[in-house]
């Protein structure tokens, strides 16, 4: 804090998200209080300063009092963070006391890539659509691409509770109050409250505040991963609402929008968040599982598109009409780090079984198209269709909760039931060892 604080009282411009005024000795990114509301410096032009007001500019008069705080946003870190619920500014919302810890600037520097270690620890979730086809690895960053009506928060809660990690940090952006209470209830029921930390911006809070949530969550994550060598899982939901807040601010600053009226820096802005996922040279790691909601499944929109290029894969949920269950779509879902653990931390047949089972499922989709177009189906088509049903119910559905070895055995069982070894295209050595007659 500065020794004395000069108070300014003359705003020159006000938009819905920003105000501007003339002031001296102001530094980039520093915080200010404008008419009682928290704000941050986003542009300096001579002595004309532009501030973004996190909670919106409603009711701010041109003679509002402005004081500069001399430093960028900070989070006080310490062991006491565990088990607590905070707002976007890092203030407790659970009725508990303020954290008395070391203040850390949020949105700090990135890890030297040379000091990273290759992720190599499996994160089993019990869901075969993930573990079998899209295995997760600690230090990975991966989003769910989901339509708003899909049960992504439930799946994320399942994954968080089953994952073998030391801390789970939830960054909620534009979370509905019901969903916030859902997460809280699930964590409580699982007896996991002592390892949970939540930073919550609900739909009741102003949208621009959300911009602080990922940085707050990740600053806490870095404290536990770097300082305490812990395995940290960060859940970010919903990143689409975060990006929307970015576009609001950039729009109010008269920046030229690029694709889908998003700021031209969207890729870098998202990368700064996702790239905090890391396997440190020590045991510590940060894994990020995020949610990016889609408009009617459109992944060409700038937000999912840029996200896909940054994250290490993506998971799609899909309603399967054959079984009436929600499944993890095996075609479009991808975990880019899966080969780091498959066949190494799992059984030797893992990758080949995965590829064969998906390929056969694809053949079933072709058969389905033929059927819909009114053509006769071959014997092979019929077998594929029957296989697809079993495969969706026993492996792809999100309510599956079995070990990876059980998943592999289930797949071999289905191969044996419907196909000849040659039809699976699996290496002969593995067929000899695992084929179920």
């Amino acid at each position: 804090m500065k020794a004395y604080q000069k108070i300014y009282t003359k705003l020159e411009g006000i938009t819905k998200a920003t105000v501007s005024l003339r002031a001296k000795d102001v530094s980039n990114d520093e915080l200010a209080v404008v008419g009682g509301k928290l704000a941050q410096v986003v542009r300096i032009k001579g002595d004309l300063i532009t501030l973004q007001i996190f909670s919106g500019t409603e009711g701010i008069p041109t003679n509002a009092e402005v004081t500069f705080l001399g430093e960028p946003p900070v989070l006080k870190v310490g062991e006491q963070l565990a088990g607590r619920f905070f707002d976007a500014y890092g203030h407790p919302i659970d009725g508990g006391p303020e954290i008395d810890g070391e203040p850390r600037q949020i949105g700090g520097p990135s890890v030297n890539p040379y000091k990273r270690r290759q992720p190599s620890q499996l994160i089993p979730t019990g869901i075969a659509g993930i573990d079998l086809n899209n295995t997760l690895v600690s230090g990975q960053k991966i989003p769910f691409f989901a339509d708003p009506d899909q049960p992504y928060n439930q799946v994320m809660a399942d994954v968080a509770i089953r994952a073998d990690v030391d801390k789970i940090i939830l960054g909620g952006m534009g979370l509905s109050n019901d969903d916030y209470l859902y997460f809280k209830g699930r964590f409580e029921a699982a007896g996991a409250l002592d390892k949970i930390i939540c930073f919550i911006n609900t739909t009741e809070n102003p949208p621009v505040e959300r911009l602080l949530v990922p940085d707050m969550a990740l600053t806490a994550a870095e404290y536990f991963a770097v300082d305490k060598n812990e395995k940290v899982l960060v859940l970010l939901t919903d990143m689409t609402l975060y990006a929307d807040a970015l576009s609001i601010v950039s729009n109010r600053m008269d920046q030229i929008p690029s694709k889908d009226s998003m700021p031209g820096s969207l890729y870098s802005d998202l990368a700064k968040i996702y790239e905090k996922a890391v396997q440190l040279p020590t045991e510590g790691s940060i894994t990020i599982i995020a949610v990016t909601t889609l408009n009617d499944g459109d992944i060409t929109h700038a937000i999912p598109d840029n996200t896909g290029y940054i994250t290490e894969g993506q998971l799609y949920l899909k309603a399967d009409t054959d079984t009436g269950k929600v499944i993890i779509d095996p075609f479009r879902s991808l975990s880019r780090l899966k080969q780091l653990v498959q066949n190494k931390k799992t059984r030797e047949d893992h990758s080949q079984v995965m590829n064969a089972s998906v390929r056969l499922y694809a053949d079933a989709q072709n058969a389905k198209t033929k059927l819909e177009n009114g053509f006769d189906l071959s014997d092979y088509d019929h077998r594929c269709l029957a296989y697809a049903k079993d495969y969706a119910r026993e492996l792809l559905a999100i309510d599956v909760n079995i070990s990876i070895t059980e998943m592999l055995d289930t797949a071999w069982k289905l191969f044996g039931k419907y196909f000849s070894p040659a039809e699976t295209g699996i290496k002969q050595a593995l067929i000899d060892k695992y084929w179920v007659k």
Partner: protein
Amino acid sequence: MKTKGIVTGIVSNLVTVEVDGPVAENEICYIDLQGVKMMAEVIKVNGKNASVQVFESTRGLKGGDVVEFEGKMLEVTLGPGLLSSVYDGLQNNLATMKDVFLQRGEYTDPLDHEKLWDFTPLAQPGDKVIAGDWLGEVKEGWLPHKIMVPFSYKGDFTVKSIKEAGQYNIDTVISVLVNAEGEEVPVTMTQKWPVKVAVKCYKEKPRPDRIMETGVRVIDTLNPIAEGGTGFIPGPFGCGKTVLQHAIAKQGDADVIVMAACGERANEVVEIFTEFPELIDPHSGRHLMERTTIICNTSNMPVAAREASVYTAMTICEYYRAMGLKCLLLADSTSRWAQALREMSNRMEELPGADAFPVDLSAIISNFYARAGMVILNNGERGAVTFIGTVSPAGGNLKEPVTESTKKAARCFYALEQGRADQKRYPAVGPLESYSKYLDYPEIVSYLDETVEKGWVEKVLQAKNIIRRGKEAAEQINILGDDGVPMSYHVNFWKSELVDFVILQQDAFDAIDALCPLERQRFMLDLVLGICEKDFDFEDFEKCREFFKNLINELRQMNYSAYESEQFWAYNETVKKMTA
């Protein structure tokens, strides 16, 4: 006297500076933030105001902070020790940085000044030399690293003295030259060169006349890239761009590989750090890392340095090319570089072109691709820079400015297709949309005639034709149904599947299949084309499908077996029997 200035404006990493003297476009300056010197580059000058892009986070910077201009452009240091190093986009050595986090204003020396190198002179006193000529040589790994007359030396020189063979560090004056005016100029083992200027110390740049082997069938067989050629790989995310690029990096027939990770994922670079030191170069039998330099500016590192990183990488390649070596530059991804340009253009409030990219994007991209090429050096030796860039088209749509501009500049096009990736047909390079213009070069055709097989290009075109016919047949079958078309349609379709599964698809994670040398590619293509030339007739399409599925399975097992092994010939025998 250095030009000085003070900060007057800040928007993210674009800073406006009021200057008190002359400044040049692309000049480097340092901004003093409470004792931390942050590097920045001039990108626009308007009257007394220079706009500079800062290579670091500008958090905490204030109006009135002091700036000092260096009077030179962004340069790289060239000399022995570049190989097996890991640099950021500004050539800071990431390995020698102490902290786990990248600290602002921490700049590390790219080369080791203590290390002694075994020097052997190549020139003699009295020799007439010009920039780029070889004076001596040190062994860098297993490569002969030439010590050259610095590229920046203009005019003719005479060698006055040269050190005798021995061990020296890079700062030792290994030779003294005399210029036309009779002045003496010293030469050490290092030199500096501005990254945005192409190195042109060679006699000529002829058309490429041979291909660069990558061990990837869909490239070498179908659409080969020339040594000194250019190519690009566009594709939506999740189509295997990175896996394909890593395969090329591991297997490419080049002396030096420079990988520029430009605005991409850090874990992918870590994969290179972790795997390359373990892997053996199939061509030389040495560790891959010994021939590799990594320029790593991942997506969360400062955006301006991302733009610099591709130029840094290219300059290092040009340096090794001047030693008569074959270099391969892989840049992943050039779209991130273009986006860095867009971010700056946007902050400078320039009028935008298509998709808010700067209007000169196309010119910038073609200028960059033009720096690749095969050259004949002044001493008659040949050197080459082969460049393959990846493009990450927004929304997977190839009709976007970066893809379109790159298509004009690059000679090979490897289109990754979502449909093929969804079906796990990797590498997902589309066989019909992709092209290599080098197949039209008479030099390349006759090179392939001599080195692979007489009439090879004809065979390649034949394979493409089989795929095209198969696609047509598949469309008819989809419209008319399995029973609605003659048997020949099914046969044509399955012949194309045969080419697809056996030639196009390749398992990058299988120890044997990952690398397929040209000789093996020749064998497999001949075998498959031989089968496709045969006429087949079946009772019904079910039988046809079954026959080809079994045949494909045998041939795939063959791809998984070591070439010319017992197992390999056994599968070959089975295939022969099946198709007899």
